[in-house]
């Protein structure tokens, strides 16, 4: 229906401002879900270097100069990768927390508090992310 008639600018004007907690939760969950599956694909791609390493020279593995180790450590040296990792953590934590919230909703528990539980997931995600920054950024340029 929404597609069949265009109310012009008026239809879309400022709609996002009018979203409620549940809708934001839905959007964030979607977004983080897509990020995670996207990451999973890249992750396996990167880890695939292990195949090369395993079929390569065992001494290189000993010396920690095999493709797998060098790739991973090379990536880890990049500041941007570390930052992205923090982002990934945030994404994953939110998805987990909100996922738990959704599981509760599915079980019919605490539906009246659905907006508060969403805010709680947001706050917790923030807190965990901030708390993990030292661990994640240790050893790169600091």
């Amino acid at each position, binding site marked *: 229906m929404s597609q069949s008639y265009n109310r012009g600018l008026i239809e879309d004007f400022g709609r996002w401002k009018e979203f409620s907690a549940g809708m934001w939760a839905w959007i964030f969950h*979607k977004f983080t*879900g*897509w990020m*995670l*599956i996207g990451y*999973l*694909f890249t992750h*396996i791609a990167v*880890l*695939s270097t*292990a*195949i090369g*390493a*395993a*079929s390569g020279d065992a001494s290189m*593995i*000993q010396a*920690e100069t*095999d493709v*797998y*180790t060098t790739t*991973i*450590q090379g990536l*880890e*040296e990049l500041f941007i990768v570390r930052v992205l*990792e923090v982002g990934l*953590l945030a994404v*994953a934590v939110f998805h*987990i927390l909100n*996922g*738990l919230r*959704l*599981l509760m909703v*599915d079980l019919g528990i605490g539906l009246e508090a659905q907006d508060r539980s969403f805010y709680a997931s947001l706050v917790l995600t923030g807190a965990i992310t901030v708390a*993990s920054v030292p*661990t*994640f950024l*240790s*050893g*790169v340029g600091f």
Partner: protein
Amino acid sequence: MAERYSSFAPGGTRWLLQRITAAFLVVVLAFHFFQLHFVTHAAEVTFMGTQARMQNVGYFLTMVLFLITAAFHGVNGVYNALINQGLEGTRKKVVLAVLVIAGGALIAQGVYVAVAMAGWI
């Protein structure tokens, strides 16, 4: 009336599996993150360390299961999201096929990688 909605796929199974995989993923993903960022820092990952972990059959199986559930969960999630946007007909079938193939490939490649990590090939 109701006939319009009679497709053969009552969405219930996928819905339930999405929840079950989610519940499983909470545990494994938390473990995974903890293992590779806090116990072992990612920057200190080496093939040797990875291999050592992977050779533990329990860990190996967990990771493979982790991969399978995550792949299903992720791909199914994407598929749902697209259906929610009103994806219909052939396009829906194509998307489903692509997602199944991608998911399958992901799992195959992942398992292959894990086996390689464990040094079993």
